[in-house]
């Protein structure tokens, strides 16, 4: 007997019949040839989030982003006209990497008035124009207007900066109605950031799989709750309030009774004192915009709503938590069986020590969970790669996984077909 209503078709998966219900072939996560196609068919052609505008609030603020899947690097910068632009991180003279510190393959950030190449001191302004050539008279018919930095498509939505190496549509078109329906959430108020990074020994899709379902939560994380609560959770299992798919993107909306808990004895002593935990600080911040939420947030309009988790295809997840904070995940493939995982927690800046420590506990708790999640992946990757078993059944609560693998399959297929023509 389900605890929450499902669509009239009987299941979330049947509500989207193109998904089918067959077991999924995970060759897409172990085959190096498939990964080569994915790099072009998926990653070069998608809008990829590279962070928030608050990271570069003033003219001349910049950061670099290594795009290993494309074997390239971009620099994202705020211009004097306040516009955020992205450029390939390459000097037009002889191809030196333009912006880096000490180690060319490490990301960097800072503030500058112009970009100066370390090699021959060619200079570019913040809009990418070439402004200075060392010993310009030694060159032949060189028009500086022809040698500006090569721009990468870059658009901003709700403070999220996206780039695209080979855009097929505008960012707004790409995001579609479901994701655009998050617009208006007070992201800009949540500027207290905790960021994490790890290199993970698995295909990028396997970590999205891990975070796009909560079916695992009562089992993998059972030791994190007090025993009686853990037993109750495992008996109950997990059912979402709502699932939605829109184009390549998807979302799951979940209940969450832990912020604050119904019974204070369900949680650990430090959570009782600091009034915080995995679901974030229990007391919502005092800002506008949390009472009337945008239409895509808590779409079931459930009173027991706790969290919405959006997969913004291909590699960006956005989690909006009921108590008024959000979390982002990024999965940057570096090989068929490796990726760089990034996570950032965003809170409204604390006004006092009590709020600061409540956020500290939420951040520390996040890491305890994520380490358990991350560690299962390398083992999963190894075993899938053994090909002892190649197809895996996914349940109705794993619909987002089924969707992720199908969308990727469809894009790779479309790319193959176009190449064959």
């Amino acid at each position: 007997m389900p605890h929450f209503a499902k669509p009239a078709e009987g299941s979330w998966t049947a509500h989207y019949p193109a998904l089918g219900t067959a077991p999924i072939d995970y060759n897409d996560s172990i085959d190096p040839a498939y990964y080569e196609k994915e790099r072009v068919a998926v990653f070069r052609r998608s809008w990829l989030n590279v962070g928030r505008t608050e990271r570069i609030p003033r003219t001349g603020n910049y950061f670099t982003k290594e795009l290993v899947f494309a074997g390239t690097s971009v620099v994202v910068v705020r211009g004097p006209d306040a516009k955020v632009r992205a450029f390939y991180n390459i000097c037009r003279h002889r191809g030196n990497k333009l912006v880096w510190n000490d180690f060319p393959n490490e990301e960097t950030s800072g503030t500058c008035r112009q970009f100066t190449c370390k090699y021959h001191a060619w200079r570019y302004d913040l809009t990418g124009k070439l402004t200075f050539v060392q010993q310009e008279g030694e060159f032949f018919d060189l028009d500086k207007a022809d040698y500006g930095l090569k721009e990468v498509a870059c658009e901003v939505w709700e403070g999220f900066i996206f780039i695209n190496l080979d855009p097929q549509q505008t960012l707004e078109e790409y995001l579609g109605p479901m994701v655009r329906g998050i617009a208006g959430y007070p992201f800009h108020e949540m500027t207290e950031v905790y960021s994490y990074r790890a290199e993970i020994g698995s295909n990028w899709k396997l970590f999205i799989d891990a975070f796009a379902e909560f079916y695992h939560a009562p089992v993998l994380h059972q030791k994190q709750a007090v025993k009686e609560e853990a037993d109750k959770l495992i008996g109950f299992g997990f059912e979402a309030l709502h699932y939605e798919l829109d184009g390549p993107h998807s979302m799951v909306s979940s209940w969450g009774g832990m912020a604050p808990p119904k019974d204070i004895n369900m949680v650990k002593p430090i959570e009782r004192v600091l009034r915080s935990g995995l679901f974030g600080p229990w007391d919502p911040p005092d800002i506008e915009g949390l009472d009337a939420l945008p239409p895509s947030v808590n779409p079931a309009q459930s009173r027991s709503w706790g969290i919405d988790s959006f997969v913004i295809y291909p590699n960006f997840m956005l989690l909006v938590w009921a108590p008024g904070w959000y979390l982002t995940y990024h999965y940057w493939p570096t090989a068929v069986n490796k990726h760089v995982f990034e996570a950032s927690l965003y809170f409204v800046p604390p006004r006092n020590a009590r709020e600061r420590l409540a956020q500290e506990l939420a951040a520390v708790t996040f890491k305890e969970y994520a380490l358990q999640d991350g560690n299962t992946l390398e083992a999963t990757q190894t075993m899938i790669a053994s090909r002892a078993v190649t197809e895996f059944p996914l349940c109705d609560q794993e619909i987002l996984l089924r969707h992720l693998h199908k969308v990727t399959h469809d894009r790779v297929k479309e790319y193959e077909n176009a190449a064959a023509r």
Partner: protein
Amino acid sequence: MPLPADFADLEPYADWALATEPERYARRLASSMADMQAFYDAAFLRLEDAIAYCDKFPLDSLPDDAVTLMHLMQSLVMVSFPVEVWKQARVPDSGAAYLDVIAEPVVG
């Protein structure tokens, strides 16, 4: 920087006053459960008092002794999982997995 005078009982644990998460996490991994339990027992009793003391000042201009106290309480949060739940310093089932903090707000 010493702790506020009212928190002299926590002086034996003053070396837990660490400003950043990487320092606090490394200290946790390098500590025995007995050490973490002793620190937790002493600091947890004073957590509410510490919040009350620090909240007499604006968070962005805490006096030095309150900054030290905050760093100590952040370490209390760091050891709370090992002491209250795991009974070990490392997260169970986390193997060789790691997750490095690359940006965080630092008190003080």
